[in-house]
């Protein structure tokens, strides 16, 4: 039983770490602010809960596990609010999203232009 938990926890931590790196890579590759916000969403919405559940599986059931669950709920509940506030502030500041309406993907050369 403990072996299974150990492996499950390791898997969660590995996936969470991988997703964190993906979020960072996305942050660097995306062309403008708004698409970068999407990339950073990966770390907040899936990587953080995965890392926290990985830790949760390793600890004994106690008050601390309740706290970890509370952190998870807090991260998931505040993420949309923070993201929305950031996007709205950017629009208010006069920056407009890049748009490619003519049916072409941005492609690799679009990155790091802005």
């Amino acid at each position, binding site marked *: 039983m403990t072996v299974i938990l150990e492996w499950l926890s390791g898997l969660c931590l590995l996936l969470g770490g991988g*997703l964190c790196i*993906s*979020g960072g*890579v*996305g942050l660097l*590759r*995306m*062309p*403008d602010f*708004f*698409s970068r*916000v*999407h*990339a950073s*969403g*990966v770390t907040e*919405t*899936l990587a953080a809960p995965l890392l926290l559940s990985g830790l949760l599986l390793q600890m004994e059931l106690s*008050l601390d596990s*309740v*706290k970890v669950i*509370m952190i998870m709920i807090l991260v*998931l509940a505040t*993420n*949309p*609010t923070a*993201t*929305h506030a950031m*996007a*709205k502030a950017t*629009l208010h500041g006069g920056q*407009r*999203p*890049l*748009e*490619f*309406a003519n*049916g*072409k*993907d*941005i*492609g*690799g050369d*679009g*990155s790091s232009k802005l």
Partner: protein
Amino acid sequence: MRYIRSSLFVAVVWLLLSGHYTPLILSFGAVSVLIVVWFMWRMERVDEKLEVLPMRPRMLYYLLWLMWQVVLSNIDLVRRIWDPDLPIRPTWQRLDTKVTSSLAKTLYANSITLTPGTLTTDVREDHFMVHSLSPDGIEDLRKGGMEEKIQRLGI
């Protein structure tokens, strides 16, 4: 009545967070609970009425479904991030909404923002402005699966 319920809830949260149960610390906790409830009472003069999401079984089912959607769109987004061609086509469009109550609107806008790939930038009377990493994201929202699920919650 509502204040009693809120203070009980705040007290439970405090007890879970504290973990120290000596008389002195407990009395500090009681004082902080009272202060928080007093703040809530004061806020009521600014904000008309407190609206709280009802935690019904259907609500929990919706949240589980939402988490699953979050996982799915994360997989899609990670695939796009690592693709050497970077297949994104950002759009920023108007999304007409059918939900009317402020609670349902809040839930809908937050659900859109929580799923990576779509982001609500503005909430208006009858529409949202949604930024999406690819037109598919907005098309999926226009099909209305998520909105119907929220409407069925009856909030």
